[in-house]
């Protein structure tokens, strides 16, 4: 009876143990994964390794240069070796994680007959006109003509010439090392026309560590798909001045040709407005010596803010806005001059603000007040105004003065005010900037996802990320093979996709769900369920240990 009872009890104990273990097993095997799965934030898979790889991307910018030798440019035996190709590669030293290498691929060949004929003319401009006709050159490529040492095509003291399109002329030399010497000259000219360290440093200004000259480098607008240009005439005193400006004509004649030339770099829209009673934020000082008013340089930053609120910019588009303000000072503060940091009036009476636009002060001729009653009718001289605004526009787009090699002749500007190779330069810079921006955006997104576990990644966001990564890689390849136009398009695509992914509102959906509230909800359920399981597990563990120790005692 007792034995049977003990056996039954043992059976019961074993069953209880098993039940407890089973509970624990179900909780761990089924419960925990179920809880994990149901409360997990959805994250589509992302190409983390490829994004990480973008940081170590090597950008190789290839500039295809065609070098054309005329008959008497190099010694005869050297001419025998043509055609052949020389590659000149060098690294651009920038404190940036991406390695940027610049590669000039020079294809040497002999001049064709019509080229010989053109280059034997007496005038560079005529020669150029004749050479330009047959074929259009691809974006980013250059053609350099090597002429004989004593050719009269260039003035005698000039060694080289840079044309308005994608051509340049270099004097040859009769020397044993002719190719080497000419090659160096060609690289100098080609650098001035395409990629220089300064251009790239300006393009990457936002991504480079701060240093002393970087504020100047941050002048150009950031790269964007399009730009809005607004010309505003500020008339703070309509009771005294009835100002008229022929902005339609000025835009048609001066601005539109320039923007047409730039149209590869983005979409442009131009509009203008007149704002009355729009004051500057600073009271000008009176200068008794010249009985005029002046704004000194340190007060200029305060000028813009009060005006800005009335400009009404970017209402209907997401593109950055460039503002050009023409300020006609009120009668009480006329004439008004802008002084530079040495206290000297600025010749143009204008200043610009990086990435924002420019302001020009237009003083009314004091003779106009004589004899006529107020308001005085003022006709604005648009040529004077547009000269300043177009120069500012060039600066704001980052088209700087080229660094010419010594003894180099620069051709006169084209009627649009922009040379074709300057446009190429802009495209190089913008492509590199776009790539850097896209890479930074993707890397920060990846970092952010690693840091904050509550961010949801939907499938469409993930597909944008994939698109951006592919576009970055494509742009890098196109740059390396010298196709500037398609590289620029791909880099724009990369920026657009990466920003769309980064700023997608669905990323923020679960972000504000604090941990303490989670625990407040979990504890009433988890604590009563976990405690019995844990207690019985501890009990089972203790009992098993005891039963292991017992046999040892018997020994």
């Amino acid at each position, binding site marked *: 009876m007792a034995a049977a009872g003990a056996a039954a009890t043992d059976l019961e104990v074993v069953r209880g143990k098993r039940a407890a273990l089973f509970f624990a097993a179900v909780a761990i095997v089924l419960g925990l994964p179920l809880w994990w799965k149901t409360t997990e934030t959805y994250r589509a898979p992302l190409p983390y390794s490829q994004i990480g790889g973008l940081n170590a991307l090597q950008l190789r910018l290839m500039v295809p240069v065609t070098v054309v030798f005329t008959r008497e440019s190099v010694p005869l035996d050297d001419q025998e070796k043509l055609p052949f190709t020389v590659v000149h590669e060098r690294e651009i030293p920038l404190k940036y994680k991406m390695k940027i290498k610049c590669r000039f691929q020079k294809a040497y060949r002999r001049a064709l007959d019509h080229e010989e004929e053109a280059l034997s003319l007496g005038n560079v401009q005529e020669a150029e006109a004749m050479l330009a006709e047959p074929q259009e050159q691809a974006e980013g490529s250059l053609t350099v003509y090597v002429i004989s040492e004593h050719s009269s095509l260039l003035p005698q003291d000039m060694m080289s010439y840079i044309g308005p399109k994608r051509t340049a002329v270099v004097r040859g030399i009769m020397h044993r090392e002719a190719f080497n010497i000419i090659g160096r000259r060609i690289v100098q000219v080609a650098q001035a026309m395409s990629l220089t360290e300064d251009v790239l440093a300006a393009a990457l200004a936002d991504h480079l560590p701060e240093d002393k000259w970087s504020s100047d480098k941050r002048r150009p607008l950031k790269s964007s798909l399009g730009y809005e240009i607004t010309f505003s005439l500020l008339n703070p005193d309509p009771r005294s001045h009835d100002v008229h400006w022929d902005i*339609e004509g000025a835009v048609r004649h*001066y601005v539109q040709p320039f923007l047409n030339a730039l149209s590869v770099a983005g979409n442009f829209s131009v509009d203008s*407005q007149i704002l009355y009673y729009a004051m500057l934020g600073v009271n000008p000082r009176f200068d008794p010596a010249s009985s005029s008013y002046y704004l000194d340089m340190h007060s200029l930053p305060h000028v*813009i803010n009060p005006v800005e609120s009335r400009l009404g910019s970017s209402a209907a588009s997401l593109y950055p806005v460039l503002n050009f303000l023409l300020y006609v000072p009120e009668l009480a503060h006329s004439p008004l001059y802008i002084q530079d940091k040495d206290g000297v009036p600025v010749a*143009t009476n204008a200043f610009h603000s990086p990435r924002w636009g420019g302001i020009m002060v237009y003083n009314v001729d004091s003779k106009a007040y004589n004899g006529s009653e107020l308001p005085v009718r003022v006709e604005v001289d648009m040529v004077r105004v547009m*000269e300043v605004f177009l*120069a500012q526009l060039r600066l704001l787009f980052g088209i700087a003065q080229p660094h010419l090699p010594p003894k180099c002749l620069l051709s006169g500007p084209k009627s649009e005010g922009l040379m074709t190779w300057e446009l190429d330069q802009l495209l190089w810079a913008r492509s590199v900037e776009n790539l850097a921006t896209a890479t930074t955006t993707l890397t920060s997104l990846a970092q952010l996802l690693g840091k904050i576990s509550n961010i949801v990644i939907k499938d469409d966001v993930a597909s944008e990320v994939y698109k951006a990564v592919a576009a970055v890689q494509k742009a890098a390849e196109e740059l390396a093979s010298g196709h500037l136009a398609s590289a620029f398009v791909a880099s724009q695509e990369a920026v657009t996709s990466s920003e769309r992914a980064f700023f997608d509102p669905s990323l923020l959906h679960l972000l504000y769900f604090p941990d303490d509230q989670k625990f407040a909800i979990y504890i009433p359920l988890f604590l009563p369920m976990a405690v019995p399981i844990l207690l019985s597990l501890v009990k089972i563990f203790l009992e098993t240990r005891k039963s292991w120790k017992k046999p040892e005692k018997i020994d």
Partner: protein
Amino acid sequence: MAAALPLALVVLLLLGPGGPALAEPPRDSLREELVITPLPSGDVAATFQFRTRWDSELQREGVSHYRLFPKALGQLISKYSLRELHLSFTQGFWRTRYWGPPFLQAPSGAELWVWFQDTVTDVDKSWKELSNVLSGIFCASLNFIDSTNTVTPTASFKPLGVANDTDHYFLRYAVLPREVVCTENLTPWKKLLPCSSKAGLSVLLKADRLFHTSYHSQAVHIRPVCRNARCTSISWELRQTLSVVFDAFVTGQGKKDWSLFRMFSRTLTEPCPLASESRVYVDITNYSQDNETLEVNPPPTTTYQDVILGTRRTYAVYDLLDTALINNSRNLNLQLKWKKPPENGYIHYQPAQDRLQPHLLEMLIQLPANSVTKVSIQFERALLKWTEYTPDPNHGFYVSPSVLSALVPSLVAAKPVDWEGSPLFNTLFPVSDGSSYFVRLYTEPLLVNLPTPDFSMPYNVICLTCTVVAVCYGSFYNLLTRTFHIEEPSKGGLAKRLANLIRRARGVPPL
């Protein structure tokens, strides 16, 4: 970040300047107008209208040059191919019963209705984008307009301007009744005016006065209008209207007098030099029948009579462009005075301030005999901050009783009382003569049931559910894991041992 820059002018402008177009008539014009209407209830309504007309085909031209027309709205018209846009922000409700018919009423909150051009392919997308942009321009929550509150009326809301066809597919209408109108909506609205708020009638638009009113409605209406009588081409018209109703009666301690300075705390000093017409109209109709009970100062030079909203009205007209009007006194402060004060009576109202002071309404009224007078006050229930609820908030909140103090004529003439000699109960209130006696009555306190939130409902539900689950689970778990075995008789507890000790001492065999 600005830098003075000695600009190197590298750009040579090779093309000659296009000859400046001289003697061209202005292609845009501005008219401004203020109508002041004393309302039957004693309040004063002021309606501003600013009309900018622009002779331009906004949609056709690639480059747009703006002068008086605001650029922000012009860009909207061309970008979203708008034909008409009507947007209004209103705080309060126009009480037609007391104030008479309005010139232009608008619903409380924000109202937006738009006719698109028939070239628009995806109207809903344009509508969505447009409402988002407008919400940015006017700092309002118009971005909450979506398909759930947008309708396409088919019979009402015909275009107000020139229209060839009216296919209702291109109309969208939405109202956001809970939109609160405030200074941040007025500021961008003022910025659209050519003279901003620096000159002309817009000087009077001072936010802290305009929002201290019983009714405030500001609107923007854009529509195409005929450029000439034969309507061969169209112009764009932008009307910015703002109507406010000042509670002149209450704030003026019962007097109906008003002046520009008292209403707007500003006076008119100069006309807007850009306006081709700038006028103030004062409605003097109601009073001229009543034989010179009021006077307007300065006296008007001209008057204007017409049938407006079904009644014949007379307006005093002040033209700001008339230099004599302002130059005489440096500024224009229109005043209206009643020669004979209205019926005696006294109303004092001190509005409440949230969490600082309660409302106080005092009225001195003479009641006719055998009449019922009812004083009712409307209030709205609001949610308090959650810390401000009293314990047991479902009980309600008390509103203190109202007090009625009256001198009631006595039925029987009493003889003058001797103050010291008469019983105490008769001398509490001093009475001047025996013909009336003084009574002060109190009404019941009012118990108002405020909406009370359930403060802890979500957490209670979670805790309750979890407890039920935990209890079920616990007993189930116990049942399954407990070991049941038969209790063997033990050697006994403490009581048994004690009993055995005593038995042993007594020499009796233990249990």
